[in-house]
């Protein structure tokens, strides 16, 4: 075991990890942040998506050690003071959530997308979310929610 320091959602934590342990595992087992999910462990589904220094990564294939000195954001950090972010709000209002397993990863990809491109076209939204598999929704209401959050009524 080695001890590393991670900055997650603005707070600094010391975490013990095995050599080569993934960031996903460090977040879930080490820090008890179970929002990010494991759907494949192979970088194919996006359920484990977190934001590192403004860019999305599949945390299941990202070594925890490499996140040292960087700013990690997870779904637990999206709401502030109990208030949902506009994107979370839109997901709730537009029925974008079914089983919910893909949702934490989907929200992180959508958050990064809107930070990069506040007024994305539908094609840009669809492309931006294509690293995140959802088996329930057919993506329609997820795309609708992102569009709504991008251009508040």
């Amino acid at each position, binding site marked *: 075991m080695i001890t590393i320091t991670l900055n997650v959602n603005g707070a600094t934590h010391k975490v013990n990890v095995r050599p080569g342990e993934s960031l996903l595992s460090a977040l879930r087992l080490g820090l008890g942040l179970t929002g990010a999910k494991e759907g494949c462990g192979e970088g194919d589904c996006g359920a484990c998506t977190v934001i590192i220094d403004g860019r999305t990564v599949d945390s299941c294939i990202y070594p925890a050690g490499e996140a040292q000195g960087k700013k990690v954001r997870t779904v637990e950090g999206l709401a502030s003071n109990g208030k949902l972010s506009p994107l979370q709000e839109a997901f709730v209002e537009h029925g974008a959530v079914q089983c919910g*397993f893909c*949702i934490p990863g989907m929200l992180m990809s959508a958050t990064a997308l809107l930070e990069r491109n506040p007024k994305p076209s539908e094609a840009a939204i669809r492309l931006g979310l*294509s690293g995140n598999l959802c*088996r*329930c929704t*057919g993506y329609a209401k997820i795309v609708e929610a992102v569009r709504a959050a991008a251009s508040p009524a």
Partner: protein
Amino acid sequence: MTTKVFGTRVPRLDAVDKTTGRTKFVGDMILPGMAYAKLVHSSHPHARIKRIDTSRAEKHPGVIGVVTHKDVPDHLHGELIWDERLFAKEKVRYQGDIIAIVAAEDQATADAAAKLVKVDYEPLKAVFDAEQAMKPSAPLIHEKWKSYACLPSPKVMPVWQWQKENPRRNCSWSSIVRKGDVEKGFKEADVVVKGVYTTPMVHGSPIENHSVLAQPHDDGSVTIWTATQVPYVVRMTVAAFLDIPISQVRVIAPAIGGGFGAKCQAWVEPHAAALARKTGRPVKLVFNREEEFSMAQPRHPAKMYVKSGIKKDGTIVAREATIYFDTGFTSMLSAVQGSLGALTAAGPYKIANLKIDVYCVYTNKPSCSAVRGPSGPQLNFCIESHMDELARKIGMDPLALRLKNAYEEGDIAHNGQKLHAVGLKQCLVKAAERIGWKQPKAAGGDGALVGRGLSCAWWITAVGFGTGALVSIEQDGTVHITTGTVEHGTGSTFGTAPMIVAEELGVDVSQVRVHASDTGIAPFDYGGVGSRTTFNLGHALRQATQDARRQLMANAAAMIEANPDDLDIAQGMIFVKGTPEKGIPFAIVAQAAPFALGPIVGRGSFNTMAPPFDPKYGLVEGSLFVSAQLSYAAQAAVVEVDGETGNVKVTDFAAAHDVGYSINPMCVEGQIEGGAVMGLGIALSERVGFDGEGRMQNPSFLDYKIPLCCDVPPIKFDIIETNNIDGPYGSKGIGEPPIVPTTGAVANAVADAIGVQVTELPLLPERVLAAMKTVKKR
């Protein structure tokens, strides 16, 4: 119906927790002293077991215990047909058959130790194809099939007896339909058309893998948290396999990360429970994606032969079909698959003469189960492609052909069921209209070939399994629903159920809480299968809420000295009808009730009964098929086919669904959009491949392609309401129907573009190109 809550767009109650990451799935749970488990699988598709040696695994540092067949009662069990063993004993029947389960201090140790279990095999001849497996030369997979028991239910036992009296080699289940005289029908026909269609194994692949956590208790009982659609079935099965009373098993299905039928049977829960009881430690078993793909209950591959006779005016006079479903190494829900195949092979058409044979056949492959719309996408591809062939042969518009033969209100189906609330024709007309069926086709981009296709279907709302619900009102006016139903994503339990209570009680949805899918606290429900949750829970909840309302009104009447019959509720106030300004708050009555007439607890208990059947209209044998009034659907697609590459792009898609009545439009739409996109995956890209030894070749999302966000067109949906008199508030099931007609619609659009039907799914570019070459040759 004048309603306040129904039909509005209310967020479901579990949505906020699911967007904040607070929702706990089984994989997120940790118990003190928890051990991690790994299964040991067979490395042969079919072999006799000579010896199992677990000694090295047991001695491995960090290992807590190993369980094999020696540690569990020596008997078979299952759901409908009891042909399953927990752990392989004499034989393994596929690459993946479970030999043992290992518990260790951490996952890496469990994984390493599982590799140390040694098995000596004597390989046997294997068979990987259903049609081949029925040949006399095929190896027998279940030598003792005739001795197997079935679920001791009066519905199942006579049908299982019929199966045993009509055995076929390696057949786990067959269902047949006989109506009229097909030979006579074919003679009357102007044209007879034959077709052969093939579909591969596909996977439900929920994004959450199977996950189980079993905790043993000192008194011998066990609590199991599991990602399942059927907690009460799990409870029954664990108890039966481990020979303990049902009351010793508590099963909780917390949030479930998608089911789609991949989680609609008890499965590895008894293995985890046996290990937990042997080691005395809580045990967690979470599949990785490879295990999920290679083991978890996929959709039956199918080979389908069909022949129909038609008159020049479009009347279909006879249809004959023989269907082979590859069931895999145990029967699982083959009885359901076969029974539904007898329905989907007939199609929602008036055909005077029918002869259908559906076989569910054992092979040395993973067990297939009842994946969303079992038999639907396979037979829709076959029957609806075949319908377009018929239309082409007699020069009739495919929409007109379907409208001519479609079932209508009051018709008697091939199984003798009298049909009511039949929205089939409305669905067909609507879906066609939405893709511009009557307008000329637009030109494709880059010279692509453009095609349009249409398909329709019927589907069941499963009957015969009941649901209980309680509605209690807390002292601050919060209304609690307690029920055994599960929430695997569809929204029936956390989206629609609260709306029913809010509508009946005149409260806001935000005042309602749901406590579901815990066999320790909630009344029975069969599970999230067969498009039945809203239908059954809706009825049970209506009773329970009306019961609670009566108690509430009686309490209020006593408080304000009025007659309960004169009272009404609106906006959280109870008042004498006509004088809402003189009301008493709902919450005040709720607070007083426990000290007045007693706490408010409403109860509901419901089981769906099949409408009457009249056997003089047709004979269906070997079938458990029973449904409440059927759901109807039509879907239509526009595709562009690249003539160089054979690549298919769906550019427009419409789905029209008769749901009876839409209580919760956001959830209904979500089912339609999600189901149709899943159907697009089956049509275009999804297939599980096997090597010659029955080993799965593509057990990852990289190699098994489900639709991505950028792949799918927007789904134009139409919700048709036909007011089903048997349904709660007129509704019918909608969980499965949206996946059923998609394959047919896309296949017909491709055929329209290239001039010939492609007869095998998925519609891969190479298959489309090959089909195009056959046209050029003609």
